[in-house]
């Protein structure tokens, strides 16, 4: 079984993450209920003809994917894996609304064709002329994690050398308002809903200062009480103890389900830095891909922006990071990274 390394990480998000890597010294306040991504100039990455037909998520995904490959010096990966919770919701809304408004008449295929969940993975394959293994995961808050787990499996067991993995979700225009409508005002998600795309190149090749994706484990359902046990087991399976973890990045979003994170955070000593990020990047099904981007950035640059830290203790040297995400008390994921 081979080790799995992360050779590049690229993110388009509500903050400045794309043009010059992470820059939170002037973070964009996200105060409305919906926060759009800070979109780059897509025409640098995508031909104008193709760009016109692409919805937000496809633009974000293709661009972030291409840049991740560029940064890792890969022209043709051995696999392209994507995860998306809501899929191509913009084009889904477009086609459905046209269908309803015109009572099933005068429809054109473009938005239907681009509404399938695998559009980003397909468009990247098409742009690269890449015939390799290609898969798309659509499992709510575990969409990205499922893709990452598949990628890790390809590297560790199936002889792939480089794998492109990404998580993409776009806000859309209509469905998000229904989501907000049924979100409990008091106990539900308190951070804005947002969008983004984060892509990574996984590799079996160990480079200098390589960041290792040690392990990833997901659970459809665990109780709050089970969190410490499950987390301790996960660490033990990787020969780590809580005190070995330098930083923990949790997906706190202000809902009552943050209590799960409190249970997880409690197993770590005071010397472990406690981080959060959704107050800056918002909530979406693949927001956890953003957390992985942050984890990679922190390990690589040995720098943690104050705005990510809960409390005030920050270590000088960060070698091991644990990521924990869940949504509404289900779809839990634990990811372990090390330098």
């Amino acid at each position, binding site marked *: 079984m081979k080790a799995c390394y992360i050779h590049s990480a690229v993110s388009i998000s509500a903050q400045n993450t794309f043009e010059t890597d992470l820059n939170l010294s002037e973070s964009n306040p996200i105060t409305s209920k919906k926060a759009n991504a800070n979109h780059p100039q897509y025409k640098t990455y995508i031909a104008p003809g193709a760009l016109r037909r692409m919805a937000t998520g496809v633009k974000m995904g293709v661009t972030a994917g291409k840049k991740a490959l560029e940064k890792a010096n890969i022209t043709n990966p051995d696999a*392209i894996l994507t995860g998306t*919770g*809501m*899929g191509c919701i913009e084009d*889904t809304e477009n*086609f*459905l609304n046209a*269908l*309803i408004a015109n*009572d*099933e*008449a005068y*429809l*054109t*295929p473009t938005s*239907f*064709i*681009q*509404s*399938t*969940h*695998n*559009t980003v*993975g*397909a*468009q990247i*394959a*098409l742009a*690269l*002329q*890449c*015939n390799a*293994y*290609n*898969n*798309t*995961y*659509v*499992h*709510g808050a*575990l*969409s990205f994690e*499922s893709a990452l787990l*598949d990628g890790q*499996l390809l590297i560790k*067991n*199936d002889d792939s050398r480089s794998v492109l993995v990404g998580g993409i979700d776009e806000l859309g225009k*209509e*469905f998000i308002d*229904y*989501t907000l*409508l*049924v979100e409990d005002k008091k106990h539900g998600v308190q951070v804005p809903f947002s969008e983004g795309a984060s892509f990574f190149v996984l590799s079996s090749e160990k480079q200098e200062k390589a960041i290792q994706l040690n392990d990833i484990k*997901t*659970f*459809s*359902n*665990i109780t709050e009480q089970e969190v410490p046990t499950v987390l301790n087991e996960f660490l033990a399976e990787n020969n780590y103890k809580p005190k070995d973890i330098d930083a923990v990045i949790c997906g706190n979003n202000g809902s009552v389900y943050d209590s799960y994170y409190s249970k997880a955070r409690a197993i770590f000593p005071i010397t472990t830095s406690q981080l959060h990020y959704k107050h800056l990047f918002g909530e979406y099904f693949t927001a956890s891909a953003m957390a992985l981007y942050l984890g990679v950035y922190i390990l690589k640059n040995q720098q943690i922006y104050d705005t990510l830290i809960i409390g005030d203790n920050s270590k000088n040297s960060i070698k091991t990071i644990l990521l924990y995400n869940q949504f509404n008390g*289900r*779809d839990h994921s634990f990811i372990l990274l090390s330098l």
Partner: protein
Amino acid sequence: MGIISAIGNSVCENLEALLASKSGISSLSSLQTHHANSIKVGEVNLTNTQLSDVLNLPKNNAFTRTALLGLHAAKQALLNANITDVNAYKTGFISSTSVGGMDKTEMHIKEYCSNKEAQKYINSHHAGDSTQKMADAIGITGFVTTISTACSSAANAIMLGARLIKAGTLDRVIVGGVDPLSKFTINGFKTLMILSDSNCRPFDANRTGLNLGEAAAYLVLESQEIVDKENKKVLGYLAGYGNANDAFHQTASSQNGEGAYLAMQDALKKGHLVPSDISYINAHGTATANNDITESIAIRRVFGNTVPDFSSTKAFTGHTLAAAGAIEAVYAVLALQENVIFPNLNFKTPIATTHLHPVTTVKRKEIHNVLSNSFGFGGNCSTLIFSK
């Protein structure tokens, strides 16, 4: 294995219909659409209420038709595999769907603000919802996920399941897929002008397009360790699998069927098999102009002049989209068990350039390895090989 399709609500009923050459394609009755008279479909003969009752779900449940069909098939699969304690081993669940909760979304989207009763379906739109509901209902709490690569989805779910068992991540995994009919997909395929107004004719030179179908099927994959320990009866082995991308066009497949060719080659290679080992190909064979010619070319490229017996079973069930790979995996296993090739209905004239004649009547012969193709939008091509 468990299955529900236009030709039956159980594995037994599906087998009977296949052996009797009895198609499930009919006029549309379950959905209101202006296209009802100009298309034929493969419908499951149970309403949502009937499915809810059979599944003993509470009256106010928020199950979409996707979740209802899926749970019906998944429960059968567990029963068929004789599983009483689902958590006795490290057990996962991998489903797949292309429409997710669209069947309810398209019905209620414009009344979500005004109709409180309909609001329960807002959070069931995303594609993972049906999987979560199924996993919860059968008590799987660990590894659960959903795949969506259009019409090759379920084949990829089966493939991932096998890889997770091989890697030792799981001991047992329930894999498959589900798609109900929806106005969204009917209209989408209509705009692409690939829906036939009559019963579909896979691989026929005069084919006129596909029939959409709805279905769900799940298979229980288990490690050799469980088989040995519990002395279990093995229905078949997943011997090989291949996944490639055609990288040609979002909806059309390439002239030389590159993706399909690579997927079949990869599956043979992983299964340590040569083309002559294949006894039967259950083709993707949707009966669209594009698929059948490019799949034929790809089959010719892999098998040369000695193409094994092949058929598409789409004329029985309709094209069940994300579920197709699982439906046809069940049929592949049945072919192995019964030593039979299921007929390709409605075929008359071979395609001029490839001259391929599918098997058109039930054919009995010893079957060792069945190759099953599933291809989807986005160039996603997958091949599975099932062996005795």
